[in-house]
């Protein structure tokens, strides 16, 4: 395993140390591994909390700041953070308007956020709502399983809800909005290579040189199926078709298309993939009005990509375009 680290057991703590120094606009509670907007709690604003395992950078801490999240709890690599962290963060970002937990749908994350909400309810008088994000169409029989995974759509949810929170909307309005953006979103991913979890020290799965994983998760969980390595113009429909089959995206005011790099994929290739994807959307009568291309939700050093599509309407478009100032997404300020 070749990585820029010292002891793998210290990776998350040491990385947070660097993040803290690099971003004076954030505040890091190293003991609890919570990263805050330096000015949290923001008076009158609902606090937005997310988080999850580490290894997805810039998610999650890269999306803290005006117009997006107020705090993030960092877990070990690919391991959900724990309820104590979440409860502590919840307390500290509550300005009295309540706190919204934006939870990526994984068994661990959901259970830990549940326990955190129970703790917060028992220990403080903070009102907490939780919205679970589950946009990954790779999981087919979601009814009798852990359900669909939360993947790229979270960026749209967190950005749009973040903008609405700055407007002073109420906790329940924001929870509804989060659910609406999540319902409007679908994602599908693929991997060319496995990632290597530092604590394990070797690739999570063996993928022969001539095969790729379709429907991969963001933690190196194997995908739905393996197919032979194919050119980009054949891979693109393997991602776009299941997304379009799952929801009608032809209405509304166009869509947000997010082509995500999983870590080791050159941006040069991601743009090429976006070209292939946009051509498929053209054919399907789906109109991309906003685009995001880059490594935003990574899986350590995995090579691959995912596509997330979010149906927009006038309101969502305005909220997407609203100013945001985080290290991962920034415009208008």
């Amino acid at each position: 395993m070749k990585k820029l680290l010292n002891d793998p057991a210290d990776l998350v703590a040491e990385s947070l140390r660097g993040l803290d120094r690099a971003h004076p606009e954030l505040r890091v509670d190293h003991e609890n591994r919570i990263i805050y907007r330096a000015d949290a709690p923001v008076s009158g604003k609902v606090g937005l909390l997310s988080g999850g395992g580490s290894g997805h950078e810039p998610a999650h801490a890269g999306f803290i700041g005006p117009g997006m999240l107020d705090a993030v709890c960092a877990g070990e690599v690919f391991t959900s953070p724990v309820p104590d962290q979440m409860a502590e963060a919840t307390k500290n970002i509550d300005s009295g308007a309540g706190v919204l937990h934006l939870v990526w749908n994984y068994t661990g994350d959901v259970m830990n956020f549940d326990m955190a909400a129970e703790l917060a309810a028992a220990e403080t008088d903070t009102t907490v709502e939780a919205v679970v994000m589950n946009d990954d169409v790779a999981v087919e029989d979601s009814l009798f399983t852990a359900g669909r995974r939360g993947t790229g759509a979270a960026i749209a949810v967190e950005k749009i809800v973040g903008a609405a929170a700055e407007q002073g909307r109420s906790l329940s309005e924001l929870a509804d909005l989060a659910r609406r953006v999540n319902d409007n979103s679908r994602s599908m991913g693929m991997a060319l290579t496995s990632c290597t979890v530092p604590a394990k020290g070797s690739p999570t799965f063996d993928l022969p040189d001539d095969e790729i994983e379709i429907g991969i998760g963001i933690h190196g969980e194997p995908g739905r199926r393996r197919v032979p390595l194919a050119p980009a113009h054949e891979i693109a429909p393997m991602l776009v078709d299941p997304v379009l089959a799952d929801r009608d995206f032809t209405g509304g005011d166009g869509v947000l298309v997010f082509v995500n790099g999983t870590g080791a994929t050159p941006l040069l290739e991601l743009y090429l993939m976006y070209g292939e994807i946009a051509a498929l959307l053209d054919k399907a009568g789906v109109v991309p009005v906003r685009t995001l291309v880059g490594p935003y939700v990574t899986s350590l050093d995995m090579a691959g990509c995912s596509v997330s599509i979010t149906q927009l309407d006038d309101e969502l478009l305005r909220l997407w375009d609203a100013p945001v100032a985080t290290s991962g997404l920034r415009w208008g300020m």
Partner: protein
Amino acid sequence: MAAGSPGVDLDTLQRWLRAFAASVAEHKDELTDLDAAIGDADHGANMHRGMSAVVDALDAAPAADPAALFKQTGMTLVKSVGGASGPLYGTWFLRMAPATGGATTLDPETFAKALRAGLEGVVARGKAELGDKTMVDALAPALDALDAALAAGESLADALRAASTAADEGRDATTPMVARKGRASYLGERSAGHQDPGATSAALLVAAAAGSVGGAVAEGA
């Protein structure tokens, strides 16, 4: 061995937790490799981090009675593990605590009742059913075997040995299963053919009980 074995005292329970921690440390890479096949390659690291913290907590502040020990262990696991296994193993011990009824030495039935309460907590938290390819598939048969053996008048030591055998069989039975809970469920049919990591660590937990609690009780008998 005759019925009416002596109870399980605090020391023995601590030995159980230490034995489980040692066993997890020994099988860390195996647990992670199992998780790599159908999950995200962290179960060994998760359990090792958690049980090391449990042992540290034991060393730092010995608990006053079994209830306190279980509570401290559960809270430590919830605080230090994360992921799916943290809340589940954490809940297991947290629910065992009140089920001891404050006793300082647990008679076999109380110990079995506490374990059963733990399992109910796990099921309440994780909603897994038998056959979903989770730790429940090792824990539930183990507790059934324990109860049955105790009901048949066997000693706690023997009953725990039976439980451990049942846990191992339950763990092995997860291999052909298609996962319906947890991360492995994303794989659908592809999850079949792989042993569940959580069922594997759960079997280690029961084996540690058979080894330390069972052993101590047997010695004490």
